[in-house]
């Protein structure tokens, strides 16, 4: 028995010794510049779901960018190389958070190229166009913007079906007498696709396919799940079938964009404003051996006909680009164009 205890103790000590950890636990990458580069590149290689859709040669990019690093590279050099490489993906869901350093967080796509959301401010719009704004529990601000036209801004899509059934139900009850509705999804931040599906389902009288999603299910370039089909179908006591305008801008991203895809299938809906951000896929968070965090888009989000707006954004049916100085002076041209179209 004494020998057994000694053997077990030795076994545990052996396990805990750092020299054995790598083998025992199957740790693959070392915490040096090339090890960190490889860890990120390989994880993207296996998980990123948009290489084939965007026509990106990730293997060629490895050769290009890895050759700029060595084991003697500094953190700054590693950061620069990774940011430049990730920037080629043109993806608003791709980010790098270099914890423990003074380097700024990096985000790709529209967030990396635009310094300001220069064409929209909800508080200025409220001040100048809404006389008695109301708010739901967490996501919507609404009021009549003209005698017979309702306006609702949806600030986030970050909750489930039941919550959004209640929120949009409250708004549509208020706008029962309205002849038309403006749904404003300008602003930043995404949420859950199921939230957008729930809200849009209050605007249709029949089932409509609006999106398919396939996510990575293996390390191969073509390892994707069978596409899941996303439908809207009538929800709520009554559906709003009168004219609707959906307002978008360059920061309409992710769950806001998939909501826009759903609304575009409806005959009574027109989209006005600027092109959306072009980042539809869900993203997951990962980390590197040095502890830096990063995000990865994991699938192909396509429209009902199989096309994709990933990386490009959904162009509005009526293009109106607000000017910053107009917005600061209380004028929202996109909103005014929407009113003009509805009156």
């Amino acid at each position: 028995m004494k020998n057994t205890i000694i053997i077990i103790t030795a076994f545990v000590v052996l396990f805990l010794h750092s020299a054995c950890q790598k083998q025992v636990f199957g740790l693959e990458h070392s915490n040096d510049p090339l090890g960190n580069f490889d860890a990120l590149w390989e994880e993207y290689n296996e998980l990123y779901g948009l290489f084939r859709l965007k026509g990106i040669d990730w293997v060629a990019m490895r050769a290009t960018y890895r050759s700029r690093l060595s084991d003697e590279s500094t953190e700054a050099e590693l950061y620069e190389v990774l940011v430049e490489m990730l920037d080629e993906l043109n993806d608003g869901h791709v980010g790098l958070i270099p914890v423990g350093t003074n380097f700024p967080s990096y985000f790709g796509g529209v967030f990396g190229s635009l310094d300001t959301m220069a064409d929209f401010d909800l508080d200025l719009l409220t001040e100048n166009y809404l006389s008695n704004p109301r708010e739901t529990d967490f996501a919507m601000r609404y009021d009549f913007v003209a005698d017979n036209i309702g306006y609702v801004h949806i600030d986030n899509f970050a909750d489930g079906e039941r919550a959004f059934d209640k929120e949009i139900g409250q708004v549509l009850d208020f706008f029962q007498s309205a002849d038309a509705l403006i749904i404003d999804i300008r602003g930043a931040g995404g949420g859950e696709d199921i939230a957008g599906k729930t809200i849009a389902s209050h605007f249709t009288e029949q089932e409509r396919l609006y999106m398919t999603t396939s996510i990575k299910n293996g390390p191969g370039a073509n390892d994707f799940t069978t596409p899941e089909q996303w439908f809207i179908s009538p929800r709520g006591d009554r559906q709003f079938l009168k004219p609707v305008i959906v307002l978008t801008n360059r920061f309409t991203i992710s769950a806001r964009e998939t909501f826009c895809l759903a609304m575009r299938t409806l005959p009574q809906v027109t989209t006005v404003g600027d092109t959306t951000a072009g980042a539809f896929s869900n993203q997951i968070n990962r980390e590197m051996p040095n502890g830096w965090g990063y995000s990865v888009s994991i699938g192909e989000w396509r429209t009902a006909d199989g096309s994709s707006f990933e990386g490009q954004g959904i162009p509005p049916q009526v293009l109106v680009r607000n000017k910053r100085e107009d917005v600061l002076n209380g004028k929202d041209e996109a909103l005014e164009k929407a009113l003009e179209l509805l009156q």
Partner: protein
Amino acid sequence: MKIMLEKLIVILGLMLLAHSVTSQEEANARDNGWGFEVGWRQLLLADRHASPLLYQADALSLGGSYRGGYAPRWDISLNAQIGTNQARNLGQRTGILEGSPDIYGEKESFDVKANPFLSFLSGQLAGGLSWPIGTQHRLGTRLSLQYMQTGMGFDTWHYTQLDLSPTYSYYYPLGPGQFRLDFSLPILAVVQRPNYAFDPSLPDEGNYYKAYLKEGTKLASLDQFINPQLQLGYTWHRSNGKRIGLHYQLSWMSYPDPRPVRMLGQGLSLTLTR
């Protein structure tokens, strides 16, 4: 399947060959009643599917159990753990995330803390039956449900395991109490892990955990799922019938799907049994 059964027979046979000293006392009869446990657990966790880093969780463990009967003896136990979990070589990490710029070009910044304090939660519910073999051995079976949740890779990581194990216990009277060894090895398990892309994205399921259960639950047997568990301890039998024990636990888990996860657990606990 045949190779699996051969491995199992060899392991059990080795246990039965352990030194035993004949005794007039039925050592394995003196183990019934309510039991309460407090202790410390440490888990070294490497999930290649979630992170390239080795994590270490240190947790306070609290539990209760009840044993009754003799042939068979039945037992049921519930155990919960709460603690910290950090990458072993990096410790607590904090980054700064900037929000989107407003019309004035201003961005809101906020700290992102990877795995805040007390972010490791775990629980286990188990029940078993065992039969005596002589006065110092028991063979039995156990069904166990285990759930773990923590932060890993700047995201939430969770794991669920329902397993069926044969069990072996050895009792050795020593002084005013007895030494005891317990060993189990699941031969069948239902394992739930996040699916390959860590995101189920189901159009008709708003609850992520339910979606994970649908998409990431698999049946595994001994050729894939290795999870031996060993417990060694001494229980001191007091004259008033209560028993105080000190136990050391050691476990190893290895499972390859969708990418390898490995866990080495150990713990120390103080028990009081009435």
